[in-house]
């Protein structure tokens, strides 16, 4: 059995004597005896040595298939991660510290988070960012209470948003007794006429994903105008890599920008940990949930950083807090900061250009191979090919799978592909050839 308890038997006796009890069990004497576990403990196996546990867990990892080529996104994106990112973010101080409650000995986390907040503002064009949220979906869900008031009680979301994001928003709306209305999509994009017709005087906010779930680029400015004309807040869920090239949420009129930060230097890791980011206008600063780092000075006038505006938060406001969030995804946010610092403007833009170019190259290759594009609009690094027959979809994906390629995700009536900078021309040509062969 493994153990991290350093106390020797002799020390234990000495300590028990100091406390004035005879045994460890006696420390639990206030607990009703009938409740205590019988026969000394739990019905789980005995512990293992480090060597054994390494073998056991490694065996589980080895049962999983690591695809060399991944052409699937749908909310999780495999990108290149510079070596320096893991080198920095595996430092023990950073990994093993907690929330910076004692600012004097936490300046590293605080300053790193302040830099992250600045980078998120740069990426989105917004004025202020929080220190992170759990993921893009929970960040999206928590924008609703930021926009809701007594008169404006209903939340709206585009049907072209990631279905898992919509589902999380629904869960949070079930919690807060808020009505969430899904505005239909048309030709793979949000139906602007339906949106105009749907938004009434009680509309609090509308959530638009850009690029949307199908990879299509929405006419975000037009959406923003419709939403604002109805007096509601315009919330955008954005992909941070696409942000390096696309007009910023601020440029298209968003009041709040959120997204999943996983593409910024985090492994896809079977779904987590990722991070949510959340940025807004100066006017809405105090409505942001979660931690925020601010700059200040110490008693000697030296610049330093602290958690600030905590009067919004649960440990002060309790049931009147803007959210219950406490722990966030701090290390993931720090990681995203290191990634963006390493990439710089040129690296981020080149990464985005490679994504968009390679996606278009592969889309054209698939079209040639007999897979027409389902939607005709502009797209970034994801797109849907039409394939109504589930049997055919399976055949395509199975053939790619056999070649070590994770093909696109199945969606209604087609396959949703994603191409990032990691896919080489040779890999894409090969994938297209395999698809052509099965069709």
């Amino acid at each position, binding site marked *: 059995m493994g*153990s991290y308890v350093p106390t020797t038997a002799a020390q234990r006796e000495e300590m028990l004597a100091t406390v004035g009890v005879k045994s460890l069990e006696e420390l639990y004497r206030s607990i009703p005896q009938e409740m205590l576990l019988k026969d000394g403990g739990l019905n789980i196996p005995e*512990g293992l040595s480090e060597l054994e546990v390494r073998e056991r867990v490694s065996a589980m990892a080895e049962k999983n298939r690591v695809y060399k080529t991944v052409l699937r996104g749908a909310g999780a994106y495999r990108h290149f991660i510079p070596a320096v990112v893991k080198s920095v973010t595996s430092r023990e101080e950073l990994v093993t510290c907690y929330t910076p409650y004692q600012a004097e000995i936490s300046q590293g986390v605080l300053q790193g988070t302040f830099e992250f907040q600045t980078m998120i503002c740069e990426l989105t064009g917004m004025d202020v960012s929080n220190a992170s949220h759990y993921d893009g979906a929970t960040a999206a869900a928590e924008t609703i209470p930021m926009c809701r008031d007594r008169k404006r009680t209903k939340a709206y979301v585009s049907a072209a948003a990631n279905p898992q994001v919509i589902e999380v928003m629904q869960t949070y709306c079930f919690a807060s007794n808020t009505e969430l209305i899904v505005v239909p999509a048309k030709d793979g994009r949000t139906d602007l006429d339906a949106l105009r017709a749907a938004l009434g005087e009680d509309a609090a906010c509308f959530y638009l994903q850009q690029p949307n779930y199908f990879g299509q680029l929405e006419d975000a400015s037009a959406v923003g105008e419709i939403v604002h004309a109805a007096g509601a807040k315009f919330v955008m869920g954005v992909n941070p890599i696409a942000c390096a090239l696309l007009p910023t949420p601020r440029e298209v009129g968003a009041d709040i920008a959120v997204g999943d930060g996983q593409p910024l230097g985090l492994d896809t890791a079977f779904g987590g940990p990722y991070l949510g980011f959340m940025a807004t206008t100066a006017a809405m600063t105090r409505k942001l949930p979660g931690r925020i780092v601010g700059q200040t000075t110490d008693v000697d006038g030296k610049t330093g950083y602290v958690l600030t505006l905590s009067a919004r938060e649960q440990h002060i406001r309790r049931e009147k807090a803007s959210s219950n969030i406490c722990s966030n995804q701090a290390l993931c946010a720090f990681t995203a900061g290191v990634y963006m610092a390493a990439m710089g403007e040129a690296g981020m833009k080149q990464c985005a250009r490679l994504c968009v170019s390679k996606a278009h190259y592969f889309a054209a290759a698939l079209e040639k191979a007999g897979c027409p594009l389902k939607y005709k609009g502009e797209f970034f690094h994801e797109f849907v090919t039409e394939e109504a027959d589930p049997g055919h979809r399976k055949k395509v994906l199975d053939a790619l799978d056999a070649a070590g390629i994770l093909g696109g995700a199945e969606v209604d009536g087609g396959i949703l592909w994603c191409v990032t900078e990691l896919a080489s021309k040779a890999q894409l040509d090969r994938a297209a050839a395999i698809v052509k062969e099965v069709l």
Partner: protein
Amino acid sequence: MKLIFELGVEGRGMSLMPACDIPEYTLPEERTAPLRLPHVSENELTRHYTALCKRIHGVNDGFYPLGSCTMKYNPKIDEDMAALAGFTQLHPLQPIESAQGALEALHVLGTELGEIFGMDAVTFQPAAGAHGELTGVLLIKAYHTERGDSARTKIIVPDSAHGTNPATAAMCGYQVVNIPSGADGCVDLDALRASVGPDTAGLMLTNPNTVGIFDKNILEITRIVHDAGGLCYYDGANLNAVMGVVRPGDMGFDCIHSNLHKTFATPHGGGGPGAGAVGCKDFLRKFMPGPLVVEKDGRFGFDYPEKSIGRVKLFYGNFDVCIRALTYVLTLGRSGIREAAMNAVLNANYMRVKLAEKFTMAYDEICMHEFVMSLVELHKETGVSALDLAKGMLDYGLHPPTMYFPLIVHEALMIEPCETESKETMDEVCDIYGKLFDLAYSDPESLHTAPHATPVRRLDEVGAARSMILRYSFA
């Protein structure tokens, strides 16, 4: 020290991305807003972040008795396992036949935690403790909703609870009924009896409570709530004291969250990522967020509960955090889990008794894994507050205890040493605390102005909230 934006020069950067090996595609409309990211070399970048990391105190740097946060040692094998490519390189939507090991990992962890909790089903979707609370209270809400019992609009929370409890209840659309606690933080049974009724949806409770005391009336408490038709939610923040000794399920709770980043030794990462595993009794399973991992004939698959409250997060939660917790649970096993809890309690009591020679305890009895000191008397006699004393500890390289919590104890310092600290460390720390106590009488000014040896000294928090400098301003 400088911000990363103040380092480097334009034109400098790292060579990370290749040139485009296919025709370049130009989007019809691109951003015109500047994207002012750092222009630094790899060397500059590494030195900057190394300097930042030197300005952080982690568990690896020294004693970290942050009460209620369970800052135990984070085993390195857990990190190694979480870094295996067979976990980190998985796409969450890859075919489940190709991710059997990942599902097995979640299944094994779910089974073992279910046994530790005394619960029948476990989900790993919640990302943190508060997120687990949200999930748990929604299970309660779904239960009453399904029964058509719409009169249940209130959640009862003791005034010794963490702030997340009332905040969670409010997020779930409930009215919060705060009930008073005794000096020992335990539930006032009469107050509870007077608060329950046909409008009670449930109770949220931490046991051991935030004063570090196991509420011996727990069976009576959960019975009172159940008799009134409500359900009982266990906040697992303090599970480290009792795992392997007594199970929340046997205390009468219906659902629970556990912070894997506290009890199950996954690192806190500066405040996340954590994981807030949620367990529930069988009758609530159908409301759990989907998917849940199930096993049939040695194959693992996903099950989507029929009346699910819906997803609370993308995919399956903070999966790679769960790998760390799995490694920890497999390492400790049945005896080790119990040994860890008992030694956490022993260490807390050892420090409590040693410190009681000078300090006043909020409640001077056998405690669980943590205890609370009240510095009211010291403050009155010397003017040195809990904050001053805490800041004095910084000069000794110690992370202070949790300050000013729970709210029911004035001038509180809440100490949770954890089972992974040695007697020698605790002896040394108790000596330092004693010295600081004496210093409060001999030279209170030196504590009012502490810390002196840290990278920055006391920071102007009021000024920060007023000036709201929340990002770097480019010239």
